[in-house]
């Protein structure tokens, strides 16, 4: 039964609208900026009325940026590809390694398991530069410097602890009796893991994978230190619009719009899993 008065409904609507406006306005403004030239963006006072242009998107997609210093070659689409490739591959590798490990930590309590799990989590505590300088030397010695393979490996520092700890909580929440019943029916350990544990944990795995993807996508420092310009992700590439000869606000805005699209699409698609997976994995019954 609806117990809310009309006044409550109106107030609630106003409050929700205000919150949405507050949080969405920067995104909305960036979206508008992406269709403006630097000149209109920098008008005093700023105005919401302008003649839209696609030049910013055209510059990003064609790789040629006209600026006050003349024409500049930009690698934004290549950066976008690098981000997508590195993040996707890192998450796939992270899931392949992390999900069985999470199951082991969650279900098969063994001597030192907590210590090992905490050690893996501690990768997230260390300042990246502390790890990266020695890594640069090792990577050079073993030929992994400036390779996608090397970067995907290093990205495990971001994705693996995340996947492991989220999925582990989820495995722990699945009643062990279900698995025991399946085992008693004559199925092996591997089949139980594959047919029972994995499907039941799928929302949590999807949520962990999505979060890991977002964290990997937002990473900045690993590729910057360990790779050449041709392997830089969009987080580094976007800075190319801040040049000594001026800030290209329009291209930055268009770059932001393009770079949030993949994660936004993924998040919208997997929104249900994300909320369900995180809440179920986090609460112990």
């Amino acid at each position, binding site marked *: 039964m609806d117990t809310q008065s009309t006044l409550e409904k109106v107030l609630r609507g106003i409050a929700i609208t205000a919150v949405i406006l507050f949080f969405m306005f920067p995104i909305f403004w960036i979206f508008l900026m992406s269709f403006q030239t630097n000149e209109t963006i920098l008008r005093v006072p700023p105005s919401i009325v302008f003649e839209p242009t696609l030049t910013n998107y055209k510059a990003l997609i064609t790789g040629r940026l006209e600026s006050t210093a003349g024409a500049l070659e930009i690698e934004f689409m290549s950066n976008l590809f690098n981000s997508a490739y590195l993040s996707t591959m890192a998450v796939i590798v992270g899931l392949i390694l992390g999900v069985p490990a999470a199951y082991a930590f969650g279900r098969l309590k063994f001597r030192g398991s907590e210590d090992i799990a905490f050690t893996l989590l501690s990768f997230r505590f260390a300042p990246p530069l502390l790890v990266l*300088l020695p890594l640069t030397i090792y990577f050079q010695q073993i030929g992994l410097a400036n390779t996608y393979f090397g970067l995907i490996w290093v990205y495990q520092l971001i994705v693996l602890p995340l996947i492991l700890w989220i999925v582990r909580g989820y495995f722990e929440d699945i009643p062990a009796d279900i698995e025991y019943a399946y085992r008693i029916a004559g199925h092996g350990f591997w089949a139980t893991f594959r047919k029972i544990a994995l499907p039941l944990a799928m929302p949590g795995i999807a949520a962990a994978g999505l979060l890991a993807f977002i964290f990997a996508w937002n990473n900045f420092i690993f590729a910057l230190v360990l790779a050449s310009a041709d392997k830089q992700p969009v987080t580094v590439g976007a800075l190319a619009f801040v*040049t*000594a000869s*001026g800030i290209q606000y329009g291209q930055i805005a268009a770059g932001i719009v393009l770079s949030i699209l993949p994660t936004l699409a993924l998040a919208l698609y997997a929104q249900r899993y994300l909320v369900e997976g995180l809440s179920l994995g986090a609460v112990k019954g």
Partner: protein
Amino acid sequence: MYDKEKKLIDAYMAGSMSRRSLIRGLGSLGVTAATAGVLVNAAATRALAQNGFDWKKHSGTTVKLLLNKHPYADALIANLDNFKELTGMDVEYDVFPEDVYFDKVTAALSSGSTEYDAFMTGAYMTWTYGPAGWVDDLNEYIMDDSKTNPDYNWEDVLEGVRKSCAWNGRPGGALGSDDAKQWCIPLAYEQNNLTYNKRVFDSAGLSVPGNIDELVETAAAAKAAMDGGYGIGVRGSRSWATIHPGFLSGYANFGQKDLNVSDDGKLSAAMNTDVSKDYHAKWVKMIQDSGAPDWSTHTWYQVGTDVGAGKSAMMFDADILGYFMNGGTAEAGNLAFAPFAANPDAAAPTPNIWIWAMSMASASTKKDATWYFMQWVTGPEHDLFGAREMDLVNPARSSVWADEMFRDKLSKSYPGYVEMHDLSAPGASIKFTAQPLFFDLTTEWAASMQKMVAGEVPVDEGLDQLAASVDSQLKDAGLG
């Protein structure tokens, strides 16, 4: 190249044809002025190949560069084919955005990476890189006739700029001293002077200020004349880069220093003298009265963008920032340039400078070949090409500043720029004391300035506190 064009260019190179005749002649053959510049440089490169130096010694060798995303790097890349043709060498390069560039450089150098043979750097940064053993002393190459071509003409590089890239590694040691090591070689440099909006100045009947008092007054008058804008742009973020442009240039004009160096080489703070306090007070008042409302966040980018967008009437910052903002912005064509001596008793400006230079990585495994590239890119031919055809301003060589084509280009579109440069260049150099705590102490100086502008501390008290803190840190580091 076709024979007709080649003959015209060779005649020009031989001095039997004027530049105007060359451009006219090439124009009649359908060659644009910009292309003519590249062709002339190709001819200059051919001439360079004839100077008896074994340019092909490292043919087949590849060197790799780390470059900052900057018009200077664009000029280098645009002319690279001429170097490859001259030497038979190949050049690879990585270009990184300026915001992260020095992180990349520091990571590469400190890890002993052999990936990059040479890289762009600022002179201040070599105060860290040099003593750490990350870069080579380039005197060893410059002074070696077997490694350096006879037309390199090192003395042609402006003295203040050349010496600013050399330091003996002793805290407080004078830049460019006899025992200094040449940690880097200038590509081009920036002086700090006034860039003002001529449209605003003319409509408000303002005159170009000639000293710090006039600057404070003019900035206030300009603010009153601006519709929602402000009077003067200067940097204000909590960074060493807030101190080094306009502020230090004016400060040095009063004979003031950042640090004292005693006879026994000990350093102590020098920024709390009476003259310094007076200058600081005027600077702070100028920002409070006429600076950007969000001054404390302003870096190179905001200062330049605002003068280009017409939000500020003038700026006291790098001349090349004004140069860049005079094209492709709302105020393009309205910006003009003026030298600025803050001290009414000073004979001329004494701008502090920023230098973009090339250094050689000590970890490089192809040092001789790398030096071939470095002497070419810092040599007179490339400097002239960059200045004439690209945006390699301010070129570091006096011969380029004497070039008629370059001066005409500047005078045509950047009123007052050449005169400003000529008047300021003799006094232009790095005014900081070279020492390992440079970035820490100068950033603290900027933080103190923020407190003074915010009214959190009176100027004289703030400077006394700063000096005490600087002295303490110097002592702790064994420098004071």
